[in-house]
């Protein structure tokens, strides 16, 4: 999904994992995904570079739909839709 489209999305849940290192953002995502329903959108804030590779892989394995990334100044916003 393009950055423009992502910007217009309303997330059902935002997980702020900024400031944590591996495996912090992954564990935060795993914890939070249990709190939303199927088809809902979750957004993860992460300042850890590796997370940008990890979360798409995790989504693939867990059958969630990875929607894309918005880059902010000091962190990234990662979007996914729960399976």
């Amino acid at each position: 999904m393009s950055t423009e489209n992502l910007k217009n999305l309303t997330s059902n849940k935002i997980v702020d994992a900024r400031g944590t290192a591996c495996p912090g953002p992954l564990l935060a995502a795993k914890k939070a995904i249990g709190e939303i329903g199927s088809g809902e959108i979750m957004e993860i804030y992460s300042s850890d570079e590796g997370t940008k590779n990890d979360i798409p892989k995790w989504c693939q394995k867990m059958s969630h739909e990875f929607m894309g990334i918005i880059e902010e100044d000091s962190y990234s916003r990662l979007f996914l839709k729960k399976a």
Partner: protein
Amino acid sequence: MNQESQQQLNELKTRLTSLETGTKDQLSMVVFSGDMDKILAAMIIATGASAYDMKVKLFFTFWAISALRDPAKNAKGKNIIEKMFGKMLPRGTSQLKLSKLHMCGMGTAMIKGIMKKHKVASLEEMFKTAGELGVEINICEMSMNLMGFKREELIDYPQMTICGVGTFLSDAQESKIQLFI
């Protein structure tokens, strides 16, 4: 379909079922090393695997058991050799050394500082998270006896069992991933 191909089909079906049910989404890991960095790696992999909904079973043996000692707890009834081992081996995660660049404690202290700066969770935090995620810790009874460690001096951890190599082997056989650290 003739009888022979029917028989072959049934055989294939049986083999497929055993392949599908033989291994679970499970990670079995032998944690052998008592080095701080290696146990940190083990705990990062273990908690990470939990995020993938994998069942995680850690088999702590030999030097790694030092990491599970609680410095605030004491065990009674040890003989002189057991007491000596108890004194010489690290009491808990805070006393573990780096596998490289320990430099009489300077290197290890430096790494802990750097870990804090980069917001890497400490070993104490990792064990707490692992407990919350349901990571199982199995401890080798033989190693406990060798080093004279007693159950009473170990940390409070929600899923902790003292067992033998048989438990590890049964867990490992049905695990998709097996590691030795």
